[in-house]
């Protein structure tokens, strides 16, 4: 696959980010290759049968 990129500048006014966390990257610039991997493990008892709190008030 041939890919040709023409850059005519890049202008961003304002960036507002609350948090950048757990091995993540906020990059203003060029990059070749990004490989991200994440593992996540929740305790079995976090699955509770019964009173499920409604997420929305509908």
């Amino acid at each position, binding site marked *: *696959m*041939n*890919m*040709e*990129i*023409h*850059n*005519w*500048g*890049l*202008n*961003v*006014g*304002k*960036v*507002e*980010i*609350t*948090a*950048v*966390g*757990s*091995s*993540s*990257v*906020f*990059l*203003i*610039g*060029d*990059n*070749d*290759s*990004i*490989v*991200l*991997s*994440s*593992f*996540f*493990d*929740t*305790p079995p*008892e*976090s699955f*509770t049968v*019964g009173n499920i709190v409604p997420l929305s008030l509908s």
Partner: protein
Amino acid sequence: MHDRISNVGQIYTIGISNAGILNIGDSHQATPKARTMAIQKEGPTIKKDLQFEDYSIFRQKANWPKTLQSAKVRKKTIHHDVNINVRQVSLMALSTSSIFQVGNLNKISSEARVKHFRMLQDNEQN
């Protein structure tokens, strides 16, 4: 090859903690890694030393994608204007081995592992 220039007018950040990196300038490679144990515990907090090695989530091998030989991509980049301009960045928190970089960063391979614990009192076990 990457001769673009990042210009940032103003950076406003509140907290950089737990091996966070605010990098202004070019770098070649970054491999951030984070191992976290999040513990929600009821009752008195007693000193309990949990070891990372005891849990398989921290021992598992990360399965990095094999470099896709099949999708041979020939990339040609032409910079007519080398500037990347950002007027203002406001970032509240940068933590747990994460990176905020102004400039080029060629290779990034990052890994984050989180294990959650919930330790309830025995009498309330429903």
